[in-house]
């Protein structure tokens, strides 16, 4: 009833190609963003700290991986490594350079991650598919080993961890363990919104079209004049940039301090991969939905069984979680390979016709 496109005429190309061509969508997105900014008013510290901030960080990483895998078609299992590069770079930048603005530091560390991503993306010209997945695994293992072994990266402190130093923005403490969860939440949210917006515009423009051409058939793309190496490396760079920024936020705004284990294959790389498979490969909105889903399943498993009087151990819970994720992956790949993004699209189609599906 309210979701009607009738009467909304597009007379310019700009209007037709807008991110949200339908007026109602625009309103919905604005409402969602406003609601997201209003969350700290209602949520308590646990929810902000354990769920919302985690969700924002992982959503950012999922967008990064989706750019690489969903749009450019390059498999990567090295998300955790690129996030670690961002985190460690940001740590070094903020602790070693006096008076460095923390936002600038986070963006710069994204740049470091992008540089590393390009290096490990170099083989992508000659190898593809599974071979590339293995090459990115090399990045995963090598980089984490490096950060573990070379003391310079964690300022040679005895615990071997990196800790986010407290830094202020506009007089408000936004990073480090003593910053208020509200402030950290707002910072992460702003990052996610800006980056998601940027990614959305990137993938529907020339660069995104080049990526999709490469993904769909690289040889054909090369013949029509797309330079494969540059295009693929750009995808690696931008994807790693996103992952790096997310990694920096992970330490600075979410965990406070961490070791390399926080970035390992199972906790980061596979998790983000699941997010984009379940959310929808090749969809920015899908990445965010997938992230929300993957974050919520374990929390549901922790809280739901006690509610109905079942007492399950943490080990059991962890195994159940694994099984559920596995089944979800297989189920989605079989039934809806385009993930939540496609379900959302179907829902919109239905809404348009509601209440008279003619």
């Amino acid at each position, binding site marked *: 009833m309210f979701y009607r496109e009738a009467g909304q005429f597009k007379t310019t190309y700009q209007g037709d190609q807008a991110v949200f061509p339908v007026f109602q969508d625009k309103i919905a997105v604005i409402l969602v963003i406003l609601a997201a900014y209003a969350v700290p008013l209602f949520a308590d510290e646990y929810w902000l700290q354990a769920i919302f901030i985690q969700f924002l960080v992982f959503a950012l990483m999922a967008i990064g991986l989706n750019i690489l895998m969903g749009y450019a078609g390059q498999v990567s299992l090295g998300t955790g490594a690129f996030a670690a590069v961002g985190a460690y770079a940001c740590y070094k930048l903020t602790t070693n350079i006096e008076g460095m603005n923390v936002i600038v530091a986070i963006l710069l560390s994204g740049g470091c991650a992008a540089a590393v991503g390009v290096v490990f993306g170099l083989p992508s010209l000659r190898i593809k598919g599974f071979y590339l997945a*293995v090459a990115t695994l090399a990045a995963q293992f090598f980089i984490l080993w490096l950060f573990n072994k070379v003391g310079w990266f964690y300022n040679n402190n005895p615990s071997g961890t990196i800790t986010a130093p407290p830094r202020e923005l506009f007089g408000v403490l936004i990073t480090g363990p003593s910053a208020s969860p509200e402030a950290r939440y707002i910072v992460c949210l702003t990052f996610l919104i800006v980056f998601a917006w940027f990614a959305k515009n990137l993938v529907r423009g020339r660069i995104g079209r080049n990526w999709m051409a490469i993904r769909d058939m690289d040889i054909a793309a090369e013949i029509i004049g797309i330079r494969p190496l540059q295009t693929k490396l750009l995808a690696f760079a931008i994807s790693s940039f996103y992952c790096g920024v997310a990694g920096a936020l992970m330490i600075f705004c979410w965990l406070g301090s961490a070791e390399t284990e926080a970035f390992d294959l199972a906790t980061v790389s596979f998790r983000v991969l699941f997010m984009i498979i379940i959310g929808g490969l090749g969809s920015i909105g899908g990445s965010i939905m997938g992230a929300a889903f993957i974050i919520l399943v374990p929390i549901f498993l922790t809280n739901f069984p006690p509610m109905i009087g079942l007492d399950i151990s943490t080990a059991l819970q962890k195994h159940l979680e694994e099984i559920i994720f596995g089944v979800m992956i297989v189920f989605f790949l079989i039934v809806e390979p385009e993930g939540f993004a496609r379900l959302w699209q179907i829902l919109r189609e239905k809404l348009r016709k509601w209440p008279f599906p003619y």
Partner: protein
Amino acid sequence: MEFLESILVTPFIEIWESPYYFTELVLVGLSTGVLYSLVALGFVLIFKASGMFNFAQGAMVLFAALTLVGLMEHGVPLWAALILTVAVMVALAFLVERLMLRHLVNQEGLILFMATIGLNFILEGTGQLMWGSDVKRLEIGIPDQPFDILGGKILLNTFDVTAAVIGALLVVSLAVFFQKTPMGRALRAVADDHQAALSVGIPLKTIWIAVWTIAGIVALVAGIVWGAKSGVQFSLSLIALKALPVLILGGFTSVPGAIVGGLIIGVGEKVAEGFWGPALGGAIENWFAYMLALAFLVFRPQGLFGEKIIERV
């Protein structure tokens, strides 16, 4: 300069000066390599017959070993537990074919690959859910004493040698199976061309079940050997990650490649850890194989024995 010397010069001098230590490392590497080959073999079998890159092979190793140990803990004798575990692996093959492969026919390789990552998690979860996640000892009576050759200069382990022999036997029997039996021929036909094999009346579904069963049995053997060596625990499923560089090196479609690749990776890893490890800070085993494979990929993307894929528009 000093650092460069410590990685570029010193290790070679050390190798020259301590040939027995070097030989020992090579032998240990060879025996570990056989085990890597076993896991890699499971990958190759499934990849050849279905074009599916089975990431879950490591989880299958864990699952098989856990089932075996779990049954034995409940008082089932070894031989019966073995038979039952094989039966479980056959059932698993059926289930995978029926619930997964059948619905994913004709999807691109990447989708299949991701589906096996899902399967990997299901198997890891189920195995540990059923049999618990603590480390279990697996006693199957493989002797485990060190013995020395060349008058005490090189130490070897009976266990490693037995494992190598088991691995070699398995490889030989698989080779015979592929070359001499009708089923083996059918498998090779499917590997060459699905469509052509179907059109001459080879049932694809049966082939898939057969191939997953064989992969399951290979996983069981790998699980027994690794499990007896270091206990049955979660880390078993991580040896799949070690088998990946082996595949890269050997080529995805080649059985000899899996074996040679496994041996190269095994030896390379041990020697690198022994001579280069100290200079680099140790624990380089984790990534050395990957870097070796990566360096190799740049020069020969199809691996040592792999087929060169020619693509046309």
